[in-house]
């Protein structure tokens, strides 16, 4: 979609530093350590570096009173070591993450001054990488993935000094946060974390919003990390249904981000539409 056709809120200088689009599927029982190498051979020209990471726990959104996705984090007994592999591209801006029940494509800003890449550009990249992964699975006779969840996230870094100085200024950043107490007892806020969840209509998914104080490792700056994560089940494992769901997730993240943050910060990020 051309910039002129975009109807979602848009910013000249948004705080987003990373976006990822991914799918979770029923574990591929025949996927072994060997297949990470075989898959890498297919993409190595574009993704020449790799790193081994601990696997992600399975996460499925549950619906009903008091139910939501609780990522499984912990230690379990397994008969074979399970891993997740990161395949990193030459520019350090793109990453494919693979494990026996996950495929995720990440984009991040390699340098703070680099331009933000819009969803319209990341979407086809994800689609191409996912289809290439599925073609590999087919060729290696590992089966067709049965997708049970789509996930996308925007990671935003709101640097201290750019719209906020201390946690007493949190109300200048986060729209639903009033920053006011009912009496004068409490001193200035030292620190705060926020977790919020919003349901999509018809149980199509859920938006998770997380605000946390953090230190960015690349430059040691104090930031507010605002993560917007959408998760839900696509209608089927077909690519068109996966993309349909990701489009919905994108809409919720972008409109949700604008709703959750203040006009004051929108000016700071130079809102265009």
């Amino acid at each position, binding site marked *: 979609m051309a910039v002129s056709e975009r109807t979602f809120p848009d910013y000249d200088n948004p705080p987003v*530093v990373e976006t990822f689009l991914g799918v979770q599927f029923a574990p591929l029982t025949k996927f072994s350590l060997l297949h990470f190498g075989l898959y890498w051979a297919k993409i190595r020209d574009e993704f020449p570096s790799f790193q081994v990471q*601990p696997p992600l*726990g399975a996460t499925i959104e549950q619906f009903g009173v008091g139910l939501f996705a609780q990522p499984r984090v912990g230690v379990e007994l397994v008969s074979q070591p*399970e891993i*997740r592999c990161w395949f990193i591209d030459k520019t350090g801006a793109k990453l494919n993450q693979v494990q026996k029940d996950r495929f995720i494509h990440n984009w*991040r800003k390699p340098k703070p001054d680099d331009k933000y890449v819009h969803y319209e550009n990341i979407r086809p990249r994800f689609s191409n990488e996912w289809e290439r992964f599925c073609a590999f699975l087919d060729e290696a006779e590992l089966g067709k993935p049965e997708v049970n969840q789509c996930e996308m*996230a925007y990671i935003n870094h709101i640097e201290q000094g750019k719209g906020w100085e201390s946690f007493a200024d949190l109300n200048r950043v986060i729209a639903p946060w009033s920053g006011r107490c009912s009496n004068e007892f409490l001193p200035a806020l030292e620190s705060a974390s926020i977790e919020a969840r919003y349901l999509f209509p018809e149980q199509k998914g859920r938006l998770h919003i997380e605000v946390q104080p953090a230190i960015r490792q*690349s430059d040691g700056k104090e930031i507010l990390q605002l993560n917007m994560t959408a998760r839900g089940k696509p209608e089927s494992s077909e690519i068109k249904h996966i993309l349909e769901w990701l489009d919905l997730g994108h809409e919720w993240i972008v409109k949700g981000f604008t709703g959750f943050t203040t006009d004051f910060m929108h000016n700071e990020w130079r809102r265009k539409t």
Partner: protein
Amino acid sequence: MSIVQTAATIDHMVGKEQRFQISANTSQWSAVVVTNRLGWWQRRALQSLYEISSLPENWDSYGSRPPTENAVECAKRLIIQIDRDNFLQPRIIPISGGGVQLAWHSGVRELEIEISTSGFIVEYLKSERGEPLDDGLLEIEDRSRIDTFLSWLIA
């Protein structure tokens, strides 16, 4: 200790074909340290650590490289595992060759913890009035020993 080492250690401990699997909870690539449970001194120490990790090559004019990723990661683990909200802020010092040193001063006492380039060798030195009292190797996961050193420093 890396995940691989942890798994190997657990293998040795359980002595079975089965072993423990450690899982993560994030797909995020950009590295940050969430600080909502850290004290003021830890946040300042981490900022200093990441500032020195972006030193240029030859920062000491003797051809040294900046602190290595392994040394920085080890120093980070050391800082965030100390369970003291209010404590003295250590000086974070790059070491020629790619290591990192953490140095605390309190009155006449000084504690230095030096992390090697590989991030696997950690040495300590306790001094009083400028005179060395004790030195040796330190296990980064040995929290109770580190806590004893910190208590000694401020006693």
